């Protein structure tokens, strides 16, 4: 008799690899097998025409609607208009300024987002203080020999990004202040914060924008015209600040009382306590809520189309009304949906990554 250790046998072939995976996840029992087959059939019948429309029988090359003959999607329309969709009515020879601002922003965001790159402090200052100033002068021009570009020429994706980025960057710090105000023990600060938050949360954004664009000019003296884009930006920021404040308040309330008391017993003042102890912990917990608000804000920017600002959606809509391209609205809307999806999905993925990275043991997922 041999007492020799037998080599470990590999698992049976039908429990590993593709087949194993399929047995486990797709054909695990008769009911699941039927469900799998029905759903696969549904997906196939529903998706084939869509994929065929969007890719195989689509028209990609050409310059006019006569080039769209195959019956599939007419991407020629989007291709012909892509500059307009991205830059709006911004003068074509000046679009490098939009590109430069965009890439500067992208570089700064990457600097902040990728953990390996050092000097985050400098990056933060550049992003929050220097970049807005630089971008403002780059976009509006009128200084350093740059041609002035009036905001009514802004449009397309670049306008959407301006609205979204300004809204996000401005609403977060203001929201933190308001949330602290609402939890403050000073009665006036507290009641003002509550009134502000409840009023702005109680009105729809569309009303705010309408008020800003239609009613506000009536209260100004004649001759004083307030830039329409600026009015919209202020409206969006004030509105989002209220939402942000409630998200932040949620985070603040989740911090155990012991943390506050510990900070107090160390002899820290109010701001020291907040900045060094409470907010760093609270902000981490608020990530899903904050990103949720950001994504909502990004999508809400398309509401500005009702006040005659040409954001991405509005400019695509206008293009579909061009007599030369009438009837290709579907392609336009699919393009818009895709662009919005890319931005929102990236934000969502980044927030999930951040949550994981900052996970330090609080909460149930530790």
């Amino acid at each position: 008799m041999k007492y020799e250790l037998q080599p470990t046998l590999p698992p049976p072939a039908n429990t590993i690899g593709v087949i194993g995976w399929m047995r486990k996840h797709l054909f695990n029992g008769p009911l699941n097998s039927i469900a799998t087959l029905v759903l696969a059939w549904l997906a196939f019948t529903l998706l084939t025409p869509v994929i065929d429309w969007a890719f195989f029988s689509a028209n990609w090359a050409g310059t006019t609607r006569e080039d769209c003959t195959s019956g599939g999607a007419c991407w020629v329309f989007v291709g012909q208009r892509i500059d307009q969709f991205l830059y709006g009515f911004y003068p074509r020879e000046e679009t490098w300024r939009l590109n430069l601002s965009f890439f500067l922003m992208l570089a700064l965001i990457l600097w902040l987002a990728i953990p390996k790159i050092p000097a985050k402090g400098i990056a933060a200052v550049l992003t929050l203080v220097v970049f807005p100033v630089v971008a403002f002068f780059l976009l509006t021009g009128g200084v350093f020999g740059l041609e002035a570009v009036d905001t009514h020429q802004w449009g397309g994706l670049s306008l959407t990004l301006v609205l979204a980025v300004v809204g996000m960057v401005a609403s977060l710090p203001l929201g933190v202040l308001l949330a602290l105000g609402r939890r403050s023990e000073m009665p006036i600060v507290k009641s003002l914060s509550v009134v502000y938050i409840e009023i702005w949360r109680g009105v729809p954004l569309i009303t705010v924008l309408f008020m800003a664009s239609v009613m506000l000019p009536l209260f100004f003296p004649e001759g004083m015209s307030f830039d329409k884009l600026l009015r919209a930006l202020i409206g969006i920021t004030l509105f989002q600040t209220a939402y942000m404040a409630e998200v932040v308040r949620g985070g603040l309330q989740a911090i155990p009382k012991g943390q506050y008391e510990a900070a107090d017993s160390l002899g820290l003042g109010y701001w020291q306590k907040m900045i060094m102890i409470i907010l760093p912990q609270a902000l981490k917990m608020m990530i899903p809520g904050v990103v949720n608000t950001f994504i909502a804000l990004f999508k809400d920017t398309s509401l500005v189309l009702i006040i005659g600002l040409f954001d991405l959606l509005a400019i695509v809509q206008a293009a579909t009304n061009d007599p030369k391209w009438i009837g290709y609205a579907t392609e336009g809307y699919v393009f818009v949906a895709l662009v919005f999806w890319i931005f929102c999905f990236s934000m969502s993925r980044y927030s999930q990554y951040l949550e994981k990275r900052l996970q330090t043991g609080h909460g149930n997922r530790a």
Partner: protein
Amino acid sequence: MLRKAFIATATLSLAAAATGAQAAGTLDAVKEQGYVQCGVTSGVPGFSVPDEQGNWVGLDVDVCRAVAAAALGDASKVKYTPLNAKERFTALASGEIDLLSRVTTWTLTRDTQLGINFAGVNYYDGQGFMVKKDLGLTSVKELDGATICVQSGTTTELNMADYFRTHGLEHTPVVFDTNEQAATAFDTGRCDAFTTDLSQAYGLRTRMTDPSSVVALPEVISKEPLGPSVRQGDDQWFNIVKWSLNAMINAEELGVTSANVDEMKASSENPSVKRLLGGEAGLAEGMGISDDWAYQIVKQVGNYGESFDRNVGKDSPQNIDRGINNLWNNGGIMYAPPIR
């Protein structure tokens, strides 16, 4: 609806009262800032829509350009402000725009209660019916018992109901949220006819599977005269806009086009043409603009017929029949007072 109208009117009256006093001097302001601020739609085919290069084009846009050509000598000096239907009058009253040229129907209430003045009509629109050619219909009266696709919640639907009731005809309306949906439903055979304002019906026809198989019936059941408007209280500016439009119509009547305007100016013996093109000094004095104002309009924008053909008529995809928008001596009702 009544309440909405009341609020709108109240707001605008307030606006008119607040700004009416300072309304004078629009021309000076325009000259100072170097451009005309013109309110347009955010995209109505043929009337005002941005083209591939981002330039605004359309019949309404040409009115803006004509006013800029007359007031500043350069048709490109226009700042376009896209407006929706609700904010258009406040934008005009508050001074955000100098001129509203945005498919706006001239009605009594708008002309008398909103603090604005209509400076003329650049397109006589009206509600009409589109049917398939192979049905062989010649009149709306033959649509007794028909199913008709229409956008819901609009005056279009009410106009149609009124018309059919007064003529003792039966019909089944099939309502849709948007005009586009109604047109598509008609195209796929859901209804016998499709109704909306004719200017839009022609635009929607271009996207049907076989546009040439669809025709408009001759009856027009509502009056929708569309035209540019200005703030009340500045008669000089009002006159400039009114006569810029009149100059375009007169130019067509006199056969002056953007192609032959230089030749006509140099050699025409027709006194009307001479007066139009600035041959008689002092005609434009009352408007405070240069004597060659109408020459600039025709040279840079074209006459009314050219503008019509280019934007909505035979040279455009919509291919709208001139119909009542033809000149008065050509079977239509476009008629401009003489320039003298």
